[in-house]
């Protein structure tokens, strides 16, 4: 590897020449929001990372740490980007004692590899993250990923026991520990969850692990409307049942899932409930859920609890976990919102989301649609609305809403055919403009309802267009932002770590 530039040759001294990549084709693969690094570094140890950060801080080179590179699109475009810090060589499992139900791993360990190791001991990490085969644990934590399992097991902050990390001024530090209960010192590691690498580079993570339930089954209750589906969820929440997963899919999402999850009806709002535990516990859920479904007049109730159902169950849960991945495969130009909403506010919010996105999208006729807008039948309205939006509600209080631009022929996308063709920049611009308007509408709606909408994924032109309108993929920050800024100064005084990607321009 030619390391012509003086920076590259000095970096080669730190990590070894073969781990400094400067070829433009390689750097292009590590681009973040269109910005390419000067060099890609693949450190093999924490001390090498510290050396790199010391050098970078002295030279004021901007560094973005990354693992499986599956979530680099999250955040605003970085202000600067010089060095990509690829942690994919940091893949050691440092500690795992099954009898303690704790483990410690390097940041580059793949989620799938760890879970395979845990499964051999009938344990697991209660996460089912998107990009599950490629995502690393460091990336999952730094990106603040959640998963359907948070319903029963909480979010990562509830089972991340401790972290070792290196700050922007190259200080190797840590907080927490590796025992399951610990209040020793300040919980600095909680700050790193969802920080997008803006405070420190995570090098080691300690987790609590959990026993795998002996049995598991999944049930799907389908309703004609969001309101009916959510009302059923509210009834379920009041029941003594203790499901592990409760998620609601709208018809748009059902269609995206359809090729894999064949038994989810495509034209309704489906509640997906997973129960796990002893056979008697799963059977109890099966009985009570069927009863609750008929009591509340579900249009359809499917139990995936027999041998045939098992494959289907796994396919469906896989789809739910991979929601952002599947949306982007279906429609690479989609924008995906992540919004925390209290359960009681969810029905009204979804109603108003429908109104906002329909209004914004119905400005122009759908492709190939000759019928004037006002003359479409109700059925067709539903049809078109669901072509443009895919919703996934985590009933515990988060909703993901994907807005799918239709310029590249939505019908094709919705049939599962990802558009591989490079669309002309002109149509991209039209599609993006439409998407920008819809995004702004949804942001305004969220803020009007006292929510803090985040656009987790959207095309770079949309980010730029939002910025040009004085907006962001992040919600506006409040007075507490002064604390975030002070903490950024403490951890990264030179502002070399992923500058500009985070909330409030951090």
């Amino acid at each position: 590897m030619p390391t012509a530039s003086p920076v590259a040759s000095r970096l080669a001294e730190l990590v070894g020449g073969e781990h400094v990549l400067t070829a433009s084709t390689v750097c292009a693969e590590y681009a973040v929001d269109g910005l390419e690094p000067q060099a890609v570094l693949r450190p093999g140890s924490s001390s090498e990372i510290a050396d790199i950060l010391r050098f970078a801080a002295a030279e004021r080179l901007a560094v973005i740490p990354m693992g499986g590179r599956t979530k680099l699109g999250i955040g605003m475009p970085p202000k600067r980007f010089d060095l990509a810090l690829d942690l994919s060589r940091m893949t050691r499992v440092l500690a795992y004692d099954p009898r303690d139900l704790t483990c410690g791993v390097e940041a580059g360990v793949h989620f799938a590899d760890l879970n395979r190791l845990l499964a051999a001991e009938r344990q697991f990490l209660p996460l089912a993250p998107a990009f599950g085969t490629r995502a690393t644990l460091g990336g999952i934590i730094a990106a603040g990923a959640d998963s359907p399992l948070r319903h029963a097991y909480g979010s990562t902050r509830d089972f991340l026991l401790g972290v070792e990390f290196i700050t922007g001024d190259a200080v190797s530090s840590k907080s927490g520990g590796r025992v399951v209960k610990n209040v020793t010192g300040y919980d600095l590691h909680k700050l790193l969850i969802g920080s997008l690498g803006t405070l420190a580079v995570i090098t080691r993570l300690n987790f609590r692990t959990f026993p795998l339930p002996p049995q598991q089954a999944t049930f799907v209750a389908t309703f004609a409307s969001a309101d009916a589906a959510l009302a059923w969820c509210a009834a379920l929440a009041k029941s003594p049942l203790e499901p592990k997963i409760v998620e609601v899919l709208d018809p748009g999402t059902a269609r995206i899932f359809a090729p894999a999850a064949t038994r989810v009806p495509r034209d309704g709002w489906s509640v997906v409930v997973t129960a796990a535990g002893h056979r008697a516990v799963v059977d109890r859920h099966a009985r009570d859920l069927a009863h609750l479904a008929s009591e509340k007049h579900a249009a359809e109730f499917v139990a995936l609890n027999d041998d045939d159902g098992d494959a289907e169950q796994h396919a469906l849960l896989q789809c739910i976990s991979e929601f952002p991945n599947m949306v982007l495969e279906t429609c690479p130009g989609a924008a995906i919102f992540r919004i925390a909403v209290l359960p009681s506010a969810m029905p009204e919010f979804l109603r108003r989301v429908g109104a906002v996105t329909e209004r914004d999208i119905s400005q122009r006729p759908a492709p190939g649609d000759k019928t004037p807008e006002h003359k479409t039948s109700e059925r067709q309205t539903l049809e078109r609305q669901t072509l443009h939006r895919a919703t996934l509600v985590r009933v515990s209080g988060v909703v993901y809403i994907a807005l799918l631009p239709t310029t590249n022929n939505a019908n094709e996308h919705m049939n599962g055919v990802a558009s591989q063709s490079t669309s002309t920049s002109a149509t991209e611009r039209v599609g993006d403009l439409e998407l920008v308007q819809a995004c702004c509408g949804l942001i305004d709606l969220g803020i009007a309802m006292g929510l803090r909408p985040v656009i987790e994924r959207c095309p770079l032109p949309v980010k730029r267009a939002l910025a040009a309108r004085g907006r962001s993929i992040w919600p506006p920050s409040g007075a507490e932002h002064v604390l975030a800024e002070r903490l950024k100064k403490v951890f990264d005084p030179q502002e070399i770590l992923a500058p500009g990607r985070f909330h409030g321009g951090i």
Partner: protein
Amino acid sequence: MDAKLVRELEHVLGPAGVLAGTEDLLLYEYDGSIDEGRPDCIVFPRSTNDVVEIVKLANRFDVPIVGRGSGTGLSGGAIARRGGIIVTFSRMKRILAIDIVNQRAVVEPGVVNLDLTRAVEKDGLYFAPDPSSQKACTIGGNVSENSGGPHTLAYGVTSSHVTGLELVLPDAQVLRVGSSTIETPGYDLTGLVVGSEGTFALVTEITVKLSRLPEQVGTLLGVFDTVDDATDTVADITSRGITPAACEMLDAWTLRAVEAFVHAGFPLDSAAVLLIEVEGVREAAEAQSAEIADVCRLHHAREVRRAADGRERELLWKGRKNAFGAIGRLSPSYYVMDGVIPRTKLTVTLRHIAEVGKRHGLQIGNVFHAGDGNLHPLILFDQRDPVQLASAIAAAGEIMKFCVEMGGALTGEHGIGMEKNELMPLMFSDADLDLMRRVRAAFNPTGRLNPDKVLPLGKGCGETRVNVAQVPVGGIT
């Protein structure tokens, strides 16, 4: 104390809102730990605005501020180590909102932990963190210390149940962090402030999650003839993937002390009892109860009892939760420790504790959260005897060091406070502690708020309780 400051505080809070008499100050110089420190005055705000005015006055007169709930803390967190104003939240005890559908409550910091549960249990809900002091301790105190309790084994400590806070910073600025929703974009400031032991901000409003009461609770008492059998049972339950909601252990000495006081029905001639609880849907509670009873018997339990009804359950728990009180009848002073070890190290650690007690000639009882490896050795001594006090502190230091060497931690739920701040180098390097110091300074730059807590005071200033010359760096690896 500056009489002018007292007058100005009285002007803000009314004469009944300020105490500065010597006999009053004496009552506020201690908490549930063995530490002491005399404040200069005690104030009782009724609102966030009162707190802001107090903080402004403290700044003007340049005196420390220490927040306090009910004073049940076990690490000196609410003690005015450098004097100054103690801000007691006992008048800010309103439950501001209860939202049954969303399972949230908004409370002032002075609300007593159990009072919140009592307010919502008719709707099938409760507040999950359940410290033994829950009849007295406040939710503000729970937030400061990130308190636990027996059922945190299954449901997590306080931070898992707090979604938002209102803070008064030491510069008198009022800020909100988090919200009522389950996540808030930006750094997790709520998660950072919970457990900061009153050194970052005064918390004036708390939004908490409420949990749903389980359909069925199974409470079992396993009676053992050896401590090793009891600890092996705990390890076996964990490794079989059984997930009790609580798993508590009392050793022979402690259970006899408790029995004499509470009459919970603990067998006096046994070596240890395990109090284990399983919760959930009926089928789950039943299956797990049966499994646990089997595991107890496999490890030679002499007897496995199952609480037949709520009254029997309450009696067993009364024995556990009044353990510290029972010890208080037997000894002039006792020192409750709070070490954590990996669960597989229970047996060896309990042997070590017994050996330390023998060597120092001190009685040490054990009553603790066995399921998560959170030990509470109780060292009995007479605080009036300086020799005994010194031995108790030395024994405690040895036990803490052993816990850390086992891969554990200095505190599982009681906090560091002024009790263990000089032991922090056992777990953390100078760089770790310096970063924590700088993070604290982002909130509390002058150190006015709860001074000299959590972090070691630095060489030369302040007494170092235990010689920690050999400091292993990298406590968590």
